[in-house]
């Protein structure tokens, strides 16, 4: 029986690194892009004979995958299709609004990409500048329009919450623009200051405080819901039926294969990843073991990221037993304070609960 998996292709190149980003990315050039494409093809080739995997999603993430250009993406997708089928698959490409032309969009569409994730971040230019982004709100508008013209019917916009200087008012402007652009999907991430990034060196008072972040998150969730984008995960919103199939694989504990430096995989109960080492990947180094995956605890922590939460049905189907009483017992006081819901169908976090989900999980799963 063949596994239905998701495929993730990491593209570790950026024109320039944003101050908040700790994804693995480097400056590249055409030669390097070619080399890298070959390395991805080689890695794909290693699964070529397996025959047992079929992918129903393929996600080009980065970095800035659109730097590869339609031709290389096309080559890769052809190889992916040969290896994994890609029947009726969701094929997503992350796009930086400043770097893509109409011709590019058309090229990607022709190559088989059917979903774009556009790195809008915010509709306010001062905020974009403060994030160190190269594009403006206008670029986003143009990118969306051109993508539509190129035939893309499934667009996702990436938003960022907690940007220095961001207020409910400015977020309101961003949301108005989102409404105008009418995407099928939005990801809205609270900015997290990662150690070692330039942002971590900026004084804390430049960023909205905890209460302000909470307010921005609540405001964004509400605004997006109002325009018909239903929250389905902590940071993700979609029109009905258009939730990201690829991302859902992560939250449902399904299998995926990630290729490229810093890409993670979960296959056959094992987790493994390629180290953050471009040269290593180019020279064909194998991924590193990352231990077993797929146990109950992992399933709980992933599923509770979803609005749907941990369902009796899901747990029974996967593990053959019902939600343990201990978990329910621990959930009850949290339900009483409005951070969770607990009923016969299962457990789930509320929006307030999402905001403190790390702490809730630690409480629920503590030994």
């Amino acid at each position, binding site marked *: 029986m063949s596994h239905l998996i998701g495929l993730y292709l990491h593209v570790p190149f950026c024109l320039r690194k944003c101050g908040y980003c700790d*994804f693995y990315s480097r400056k590249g050039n055409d030669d390097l892009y070619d080399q890298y494409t070959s390395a991805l093809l080689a890695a794909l080739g290693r699964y070529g004979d397996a025959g047992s995997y079929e992918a129903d999603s393929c996600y080009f993430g980065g970095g800035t995958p659109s730097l590869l250009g339609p031709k290389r993406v096309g080559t890769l997708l052809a190889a992916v299709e040969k290896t994994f089928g890609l029947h009726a698959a969701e094929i997503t490409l992350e796009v930086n609004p400043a770097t893509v032309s109409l011709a590019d969009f058309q090229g990607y569409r022709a190559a088989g990409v059917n979903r774009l994730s556009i790195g809008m971040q915010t509709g306010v230019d001062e905020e974009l500048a403060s994030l160190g982004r190269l594009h403006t709100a206008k670029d986003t508008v143009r990118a969306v329009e051109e993508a539509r013209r190129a035939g893309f019917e499934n667009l996702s916009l990436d938003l960022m919450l907690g940007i220095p200087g961001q207020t409910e008012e400015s977020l309101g402007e961003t949301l108005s623009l989102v409404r105008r652009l009418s995407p099928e999907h939005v990801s809205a991430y*609270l900015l997290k200051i990662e150690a070692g990034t330039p942002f971590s060196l900026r004084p804390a008072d430049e960023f909205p405080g905890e209460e302000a972040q909470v307010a921005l998150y609540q405001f964004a969730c509400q605004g997006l819901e109002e325009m018909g984008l239903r929250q389905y995960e902590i940071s993700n919103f979609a029109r009905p039926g258009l939730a990201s199939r690829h991302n859902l694989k992560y939250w449902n504990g399904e299998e995926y294969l990630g290729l490229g430096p810093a890409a993670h995989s979960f296959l056959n109960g094992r987790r493994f990843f390629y180290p953050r080492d471009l040269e290593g990947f180019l020279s064909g180094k194998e991924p590193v073991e990352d231990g077993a995956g797929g146990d109950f605890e992992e399933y709980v922590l992933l599923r509770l990221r979803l609005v749907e939460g941990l369902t009796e049905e899901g747990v029974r189907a996967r593990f053959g037993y019902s939600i343990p009483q201990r978990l329910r017992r621990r959930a009850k006081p949290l339900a009483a304070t409005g951070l969770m819901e607990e009923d016969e169908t299962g457990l789930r976090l509320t929006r307030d609960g999402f905001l403190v989900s*790390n702490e809730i999980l630690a409480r629920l799963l503590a030994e």
Partner: protein
Amino acid sequence: MPSSFGNQLQSRALACIIERIGPYPFDEVIVLHNVQQRIRNFSIVAHIDHGKSTLADRILELTEAVAKRDMEEQLLDNMDLERERGITIKAHAVSLDYKADDGQLYTFNLIDTPGHVDFNYEVSRSLAACEGAVLVVDASQGIEAQTLANTYLALDHGLEILPVINKIDLPAAEPERVIKEIEDVIGIPAEEAPQISAKNGVNIHAVLEMIVRDVPPPVGDPDKPLQALIFDSYYDPYKGVIVYIRVKEGSVRPGDTIKMMATGAEFTVVETGHMRPNLLEPDDCLAAGDVGYIAASIKVISDARVGDTVTLKDNPAPDPLPGYRKVNPMVFCGIYPADGAKYPDLREALEKLQLNDAALSFEPETSVALGFGFRCGFLGLLHMEIIQERLEREYNLDLVTTAPSVIYKITKTSGDVVYIDNPTNYPDPGTIAQAEEPITNAHIFSPTEFVGNIMDLCQERRGVFKDMQYIDAGRVDIHYELPLNEIVYDFFDALKSRTRGYASFDYEVMGYQKSDLVKLDVMLNGEVVDALSFIVHSDKAYTRARKIAEKLKEHIPRQLFEVPIQAAIGGKIIARETVKALRKDVLAKCYGGDITRKKKLLEKQKEGKKRMRQLGSVEVPQEAFMAVLKLDE
């Protein structure tokens, strides 16, 4: 020459001596006299850090009891803790042979005493085993509170005091000033005191000759009924309790049936002998004047209490030696394992420590907040700290302790008198006719510049000023009456920080005094946390309550809901703080399917939860319980 011992063959004592030194061609009295004449029983009295243990080491070296290569710094302080802290916790005794300048071989019995007020009784028993005390004073520091306290103890026991000025190698040494101080404050001549450097081994020979010359030899009649003073004991897993004794009258040898006069316990002596460095050296007999040990298959240390008198069952002494008393714990606290599963380990560790420490008491106690633990009683604060530290280090236990408490004397309206050492058991205020608390006589020795700070501190601690005396132009002895419950509450730390460590402190409990006491309860999220309750004077209740609430706020992490912290007397809230609810703790994004990162984060948070106590719905880290023990910061 008339013999007081009668027939030579019937003299147990003489037989014992002859076995030891070989047949003597002299009259038996002269033999005995000669043996006693060449014994010197002495101890060393000093303040912490003044060089007592270092001097003891040098004496051991010079008497060649220990080869230089076997010398470990501060040989007598066996415990790591003793070496590290530079304090002597237990009494140690050692017999040494010294060939003096007069050509004679002398037996030195050096009894090293703990220098701390908590062990005052043990010190007094050790001193009672001696004829002389070497008083070591630091040439740069001068006399300190403990020096004086222990010197007075020695004088009380009629000991010859032999002053020694140590640390003359230090640039700040002022031997002349210190000599004058000794003469002025203690009132003994010190002009002739050897000026030494124990560290560098300077002038130690003079100390040894002084001991030969000035410490009186012991007296006592070996044929009288046995009277031997127990000045220390410890548990040996093979031999049972090893009892350190000073034979005052009579003699004792293996096979004798001995009787402990205070406890009435009887045992058959298996072994007698002398304490040599690093080993017990069996001998056939111990006679009047001797310091040595008895092993008699004694199972529990409480059967060989310090201060008790050993006599013979068949020929008992009419009276015990004076001065015995059962030492009672003065300070109590709850000790709980951080990990509840370690409760049996904690019990076992306490039992083992108790084998060597009759003053340590413990009984099981249950706390809603902390689970199963023990209510432990100690001689004082240092004793408490030492036991806690030994439990953690030698037995590898992670502990949570509650605030130390003293014993309150409560007279109820019914006329009943109860003694309360645990705030949890404090009676309903409506049933209390009168509350009393222990009061101490406290002496603080300090450079004059800190007098203001010290008086402020003592005033804050409800002290009653008694008097102040100048030791010399730069130093004073400040005398206060202080409630013991103020001392057990981080007084040492506060004193240290307010005098930059220059002040020394000593106290003794003088009795009970009527006091306006209240029980202060701490509530988290509306629920009383029993482990945080304590008894306090009503004048101090508000300040203490406020500080505790602040400390808890500092140490309790934000939780999923707001946590009110309240301090209350009876039902009345007198302080309040709030730990705001945690609002944001979320990993917004999962990086390229990197679930491991999320799992690691979860593991870390779960690990953090292990150090938390779940009190109702509130999670309280163990540090919070410890933090409220140190409020003067």
